[in-house]
């Protein structure tokens, strides 16, 4: 089974969410090889070998550091697709459809085929290959386009995927933003799935090899490129909520828009950012872009310091990926206090200034 994993970059590095996706994709590629269910591969002896194993797919350009990470995560092949300027989700999906078709038909292996050869769900039956992406806004969007282009089902935000009986794939995916898990079977000519950004750990391959880099040109139509992103800096600066190592959270207990100043000072001191609960954005104290939770941002910091947040279930959906949670709340029985690793019973308006003073005293100047 060939497993193609769409890779996103974060600066010159492979995005954390993509490393998680590569980890799941590698497991699927290895399982497919072990099970001997390689699908419609041509005999390796006569003609180009049907690709097997894990291949990474990147768009535009690939910095050397990122290429090295892809090899470390077990990618045997890396496809760098040119011809799509900026982010155009349907065009990326069309290029992936071309790769899927070329993997299935060994006669076009390694070359991009016209995208419309897979239009109308005409991916040859039983190719058994998979295309995997991170469960990010981009990853889910591109794979949904790929599902629509090929007529294939798509499973979003998976935690696990393994070869099942009779060429099917057994998977576990998140519902309710991870508050509930769905065990499901995917029975399709090719497997399309995205990988949870907060519930799968990124693990490099045990015995990585070198990755062969292939430059290919995307075969896309004008219509595929029509909807594309024009990018401008959001002007937020600093670490983003989704990738911050430290998030200082504020909830109803903060009490007002002005009440956030000490939290912001603490976040800056710890090299992190402030996140908020839904009530804070509903009250208009902070913009929705700072909201942590099911309908906000999912965070995966080393530390989530939740101040004055009671902990609605939808909020946990956003912060369950934090390595450590410390809660500060006047109510010791609040869900956030009982589910945290550490709890401080008290008023954040007293605890945070005292903490700030101690931290400032520790660091002269």
């Amino acid at each position: 089974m060939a497993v193609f994993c769409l890779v996103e970059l974060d600066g010159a590095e492979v995005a954390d969410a993509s490393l998680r996706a590569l980890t799941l994709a590698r497991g699927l590629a290895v399982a497919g090889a072990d099970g001997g269910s390689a699908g419609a591969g041509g005999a390796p002896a006569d003609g180009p070998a049907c690709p097997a194993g894990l291949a990474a797919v990147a768009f535009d350009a690939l910095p050397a550091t990122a290429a090295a990470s892809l090899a470390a995560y077990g990618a045997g092949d890396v496809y760098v697709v040119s011809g799509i300027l900026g982010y155009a989700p349907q065009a990326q999906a069309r290029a992936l459809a071309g790769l899927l078709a070329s993997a299935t038909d060994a006669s076009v292996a390694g070359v991009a085929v016209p995208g419309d050869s897979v239009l109308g769900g005409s991916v040859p039956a039983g190719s058994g290959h998979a295309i995997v992406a991170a469960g990010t806004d981009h990853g889910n969007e591109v794979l949904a386009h790929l599902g629509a282009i090929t007529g294939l089902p798509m499973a979003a935000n998976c935690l696990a995927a393994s070869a099942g009986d009779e060429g099917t794939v057994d998977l576990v995916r998140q519902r309710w933003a991870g508050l509930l898990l769905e065990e499901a079977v995917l029975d399709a000519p090719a497997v399309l799935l995205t990988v949870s950004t907060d519930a799968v750990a990124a693990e490099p391959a045990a015995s990585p090899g070198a990755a062969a880099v292939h430059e290919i040109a995307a075969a896309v139509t004008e219509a595929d490129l029509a909807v594309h992103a024009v990018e401008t800096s959001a002007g937020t600066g600093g670490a983003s909520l989704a990738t911050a190592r430290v998030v200082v959270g504020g909830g109803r207990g903060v009490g007002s828009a002005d009440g956030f100043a000490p939290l912001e000072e603490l976040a800056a001191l710890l090299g992190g950012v402030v996140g908020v609960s839904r009530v804070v954005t509903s009250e208009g104290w902070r913009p929705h872009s700072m909201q942590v939770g099911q309908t906000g941002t999912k965070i995966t910091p080393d530390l989530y310091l939740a101040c004055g947040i009671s902990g609605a279930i939808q909020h946990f959906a956003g912060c369950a990926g934090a390595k450590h949670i410390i809660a500060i709340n006047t109510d010791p029985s609040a869900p956030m206090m009982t589910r945290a690793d550490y709890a401080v019973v008290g008023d954040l308006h007293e605890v945070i200034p005292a903490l700030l003073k101690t931290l400032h005293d520790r660091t002269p100047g």
Partner: protein
Amino acid sequence: MEILVCVKRVPTVGGAIALTADQRAVDTKSSGFTISPHEECAVEEAVRLVERFGGSVTVVSLGPVEAEEQLRSCMALGASGAVLVETAPGEETGPLTTAAALHSVAASAAYDLVLLGNEASDTGDYQVGIRLAHLLGRPVATGIKAITVADDGSSLAASRTYRGVTETFTLPLPCVVTVKEGINLPRYPSLPGRLRAKRAAITRIPLSSAAAPVPDVRMVRLRVPDAPKKQATVLGRGADAVPALVSVLADIGVL
């Protein structure tokens, strides 16, 4: 401007999610129902656009007959028409079937804009809007937090933030846009709006005549993830807890 908004009836979950005995659905014996926050914002956005450009808002839902409750809530906010594509009791439809059913409604009239939530809060499939757009042969943008329609109504700019960068997509109308909470702050329904919605007619179409079932991801069972059974370590009370708090911050490695 004629706008169609797609909404889904989902359980209101509070402290915890409980499952039915067969593990195939959320136990709703003691819960109410609602639509996703993303979809509330989609309805609000549609109503605001019609207030500016004229036209009307129609809401559509694929679901059981009880989903009329959610359609009426949307009408109380300003939608003037509603269509229910009715599923059998307990029937769960996958994203391919859902997109096909919505397509049958969306293609039946000349809608300038079809709005959806970015994802349903229960199944979280992240694809219905895109599949619908492809079936309609229209451009689509997803996860949108701001929509600006050109004065002549011929196109719109849709933007969102991703990895600290604002992405703006320009789409000609007609098109499909999925939105996220935060695009606006939905209004509360007015009393006249609620009264009007109570009496309004809802067009009902059975799912069987709307779309044929298609192979999709097949759910076997649902389960609640194993929460790590941990007991929070109480570091202390008030400011007295600060020394212990600092030492934990040092242990975690964030100082």
